[in-house]
């Protein structure tokens, strides 16, 4: 076999992929040809290292590391869910408080307006005024509910 033919098949020789006759011809050629032998040795050095890598094992504590990460991920998820719940409750409470304060202010304002109207005898139908305010308040709650 000539050098060019051998060089084309070095890796297949390394892996034993060739038929018996070709394996023998290349083996004989390598014994006689230092140039091809040098090429083969370089190739074999790298491929031997690949074989070493292919026999390596993961570290013994890999399971502990995985277990730890799973636990961390789970606690993070719980924390996020808890924060989201607290956030929702806080927003709802703030809105309810704002509505409550708004209705208090509204009631005080109407009572004062009634007082002024009564003083000036412009508006003496207090019941009518309260009804108007209640209707307004209900509408406000409906709008709030829609949102």
């Amino acid at each position, binding site marked *: 076999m000539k050098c060019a033919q051998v060089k084309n098949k070095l890796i297949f020789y390394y892996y034993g992929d060739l038929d018996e006759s070709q394996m023998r011809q290349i083996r004989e050629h390598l014994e006689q040809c230092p140039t091809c032998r040098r090429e083969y040795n370089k190739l074999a050095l*790298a491929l031997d290292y690949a074989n070493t*890598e292919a026999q390596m094992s993961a570290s013994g504590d890999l399971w502990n590391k995985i277990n730890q*990460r799973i636990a961390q991920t789970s606690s993070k998820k719980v924390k996020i869910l808890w924060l989201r719940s607290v956030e929702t409750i806080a927003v709802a409470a703030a809105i309810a408080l704002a509505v409550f304060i708004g209705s208090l202010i509204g009631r005080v304002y109407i009572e004062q307006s009634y007082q002024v109207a009564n003083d000036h005898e412009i508006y003496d139908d207090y019941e009518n005024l309260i009804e108007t305010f209640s209707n307004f308040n209900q509408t406000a709650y409906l709008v709030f509910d829609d949102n």
Partner: protein
Amino acid sequence: MDEEILVKKLKARDQKVFQDFVNEYKDKLFRLAMGFVHDSFLAEDIVQDVFVKLWQNIDSWELGNAKLSTWLYKVTVNHALNVVRSKKKTSNVVDISQFVRESDDGGIEIQIPDNEKNPHNKLENKELAGILRKAINTLPKKQRIAFVLRQYQNMSSKEIAEVMDLSVSNVDVIIHRAKKNLQKQILKLMK
């Protein structure tokens, strides 16, 4: 354990079954990842990520899909390829003069370092790992995956075909080309 029972137990968050499953596959996945990254720390990170992902997504796993082990190999390959893509290092040509010496008959011998005796072993292995990483990563994607599955998992063409969704004959052709290209690349890098 039957795969159906295994998946049911994993979905039920059975830690003991999961631990056994991890112990069964951790070395296989580690070697597979090594075939792409050639760095034990990175390979371990990849394996951790794959198992955490499995634990988190097992609820959406449906029987009738590919085998769980095939899924693990696919995810490991994809994750390792992403890691390789994000890591660009090492020079093209590596000096191997330290391994080479003149033999008695005037030829050249390359000595593989003895792990026990050689204090510089780690550095030399690093260089070889660099050569392999460079050489394997220059292969086209399919050739790279097929070669690593064969070399680092000792998988048959049929098993590789399952992982890569290819025909067996196609896998054989791809591996043949991969080896040819790899020889070219390794010899180029070890000039």
